[in-house]
């Protein structure tokens, strides 16, 4: 047996309308709290950084009520944001990342960027290590994956890296293997959809859920370029409106008026042919993207896995499975395991299984 020490890890995961806070002992949750925020509070003056103060106070109040002292912790693990492109892993929070976030040197403003600031403020001068793990800006692309047909518009890596990598580890364990010995195609099916090719643990290509790939409950995915351009020049939309049609108001919600897959399935059950066509089309595009990623790996794929909230749908995963089963065995591992994934990322470093990476 390796180290038997019990690690107490505080996990903080800020999303656009929530902050999830949890205490884990090793990977077992001791308590967890979800702080909810009305969407308009997010758009209050001061932008994302303007939310820092009240989010910090709310987390501190939770710690007080749970009688969890910072000094009792082994580490703090926070969600990483849309920082500069980074390879996957567990990063020790340092001045460089804090400075980039404070000065807006991030790829996209998003609540997840606040994680490092919150973690750092909570740890204060306690000396407790603070980590962020597998942020959305994980970039392990091969150069070949970056090129598009317009030189200045590079394909970029944005990916649900935390959940995908954590799910890949769960699957590897199940297969009695290690992610560094496997080639996987992983799909994170949520409000946005990320489908990636994982070559020995590295995400060498992904559709980038804000720029392309299958359409999803809230996003438009890939579009024929000329048609998109004509729409942009039609004079009917501003850039902001177009962006919303691509991310937020595209995909299922644009066709069916709801992004709730359960509602869509209810309609299909009641015989709504349009709902069925659109939902099937989404599954079809997911399957096509999975096979495209299998081609990236030259067909050498040990397993395909479907994760994320939408993977709870037996209907959707059934349709996808039918179409991609020829590639490799398909595993459905539904849900998000972000909090646990963050704790485990910190533990791998605390146990000395991995070295913490340096941001700068």
């Amino acid at each position: 047996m390796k180290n038997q020490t019990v690690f107490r890890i505080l996990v903080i995961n800020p999303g656009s309308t929530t902050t999830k806070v949890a205490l884990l002992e090793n990977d077992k949750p001791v308590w967890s709290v979800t702080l909810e925020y009305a969407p308009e509070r997010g758009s209050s003056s001061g932008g994302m950084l303007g939310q820092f103060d009240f989010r910090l106070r709310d987390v501190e109040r939770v710690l007080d009520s749970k009688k969890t002292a910072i000094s009792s912790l082994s580490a703090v693990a926070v969600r990483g944001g849309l920082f500069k492109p980074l390879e996957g892993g567990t990063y020790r929070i340092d001045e460089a990342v804090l400075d980039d976030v404070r000065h807006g040197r991030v790829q996209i403003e998003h609540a997840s960027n606040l994680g490092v600031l919150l973690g750092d403020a909570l740890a204060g001068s306690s000396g407790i290590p603070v980590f962020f793990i597998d942020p959305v800006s994980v970039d392990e692309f091969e150069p070949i994956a970056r090129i598009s047909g317009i030189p200045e518009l590079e394909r970029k890596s944005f990916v649900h890296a935390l959940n995908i990598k954590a799910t890949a580890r769960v699957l590897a364990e199940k297969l009695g293997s290690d992610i560094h010995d496997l080639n996987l195609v992983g799909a994170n099916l949520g409000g946005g959809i990320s489908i990636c090719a994982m070559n020995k643990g590295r995400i060498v290509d992904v559709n980038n859920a804000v720029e392309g790939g299958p359409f999803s409950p809230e996003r438009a995915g890939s579009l024929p370029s000329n048609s998109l351009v004509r729409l942009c020049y039609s004079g009917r939309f501003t850039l902001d409106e177009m962006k919303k049609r691509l991310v937020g108001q595209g995909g299922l919600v644009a066709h069916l008026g709801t992004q709730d897959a359960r509602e869509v399935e209810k309609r299909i059950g009641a015989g709504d042919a349009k709902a069925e066509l659109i939902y099937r089309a989404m599954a079809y595009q997911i399957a096509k993207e999975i096979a495209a990623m299998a081609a990236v790996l030259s067909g050498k794929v040990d397993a395909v896995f479907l994760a994320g909230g939408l993977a709870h749908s037996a209907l959707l995963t059934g349709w996808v499975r039918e179409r991609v089963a020829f590639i490799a065995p398909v595993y459905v591992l539904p849900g998000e395991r972000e909090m646990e994934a963050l704790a485990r990322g910190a533990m791998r470093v605390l146990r000395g299984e991995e070295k913490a990476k340096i941001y700068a």
Partner: protein
Amino acid sequence: MPRTFVILVINPGSTSTKVALFENEKEVFSKTIAHAPADLAPFKRMADQYDMRLNIIEKTLQSGGVNLKSIDAVMGRGGLLKPVLGGVYAVNACMLEDLRRAERGEHASNLGALIADAFAQKNGVPAYIADPVVVDEMDPMAKVTGIPEIERRSIFHALNQKAVAGKVCAELGLRYGGARLIVAHLGGGISVGAHRSGRVVDVNNALDGDGPFSPERAGSIPAGQLAALCFSGDLTLADVKKRLTGRGGLVAHLGTNDIRVIEEKIRNGDERARLVLDAMIYQIAKHIGAAAVVLDGKVDAIAVSGGLAMDESLVMKLKSKVGWIAKVMVYPGEEEMHALALGALDVLNRRVQPGVYA
């Protein structure tokens, strides 16, 4: 002894018109008539070029000693018509009217049926077109995108895709109606089609900027970045269109759309050229993978065709990426004239009934 049919084939392109005479499958006369930009400049609409092109074709046939008395049919390249199923169509009044109006776009191929009809009338024989670019056999599900008013439309290299599929079936002893094939047409534009039950049920629309980038086209582009470019204020609609079609893809990255020049650069150690060409192959491979899903992974063969299929190194790299799906068969080049003649022969030999365009 089966009889020999004589077929006149007319294929108008943007800067040239190809004419050929076939005796059954054998080409006995062929000529490519180049049209200088200055000769085309006076014409506002494509249909206005009709008399000019007709006259020059007549002269070319005369001086080539082609006897039109013996022809059995005239076959023209199909144009931008209403969506139709694949196959051979008899030229009729409705078709000619649509091509003159050109409501679905101006393209030189619109002249194919018009000119074929003129020769057919004069000689008292039927005129046909075959597999125009508007062939639409796409599954409704394949047309859906994430923005309701943008639909994926089926516009592609149908003539060559179908001709190549026919060759694969002949070689493998399959019936096209029962075969499951992926055909990749690799030319100035690239289309990857999934053929099932005799239909191309999914294909990327190279003209609409869908699919892999190609020697002259940008293909699929990250949507958010593309929208931002459109709203940057730096570019007009015409500018952006040019970046997508004509000045996109290999030519945008490397200043040339000529694959032989690019391979030469690579041989001389140009790493940028290697990376960009490899990226194009990579995107083609991803689309072939996606097409395999359309066929549920049961694929009889992958066929690679078009001008780029003459590049052996390119084909080899592509094979290494997609060979796991099915065997890869290579049909370099594009034999449009031959494919058109075969379409007419099928009708003359009563193997198929020509479709009626309405």
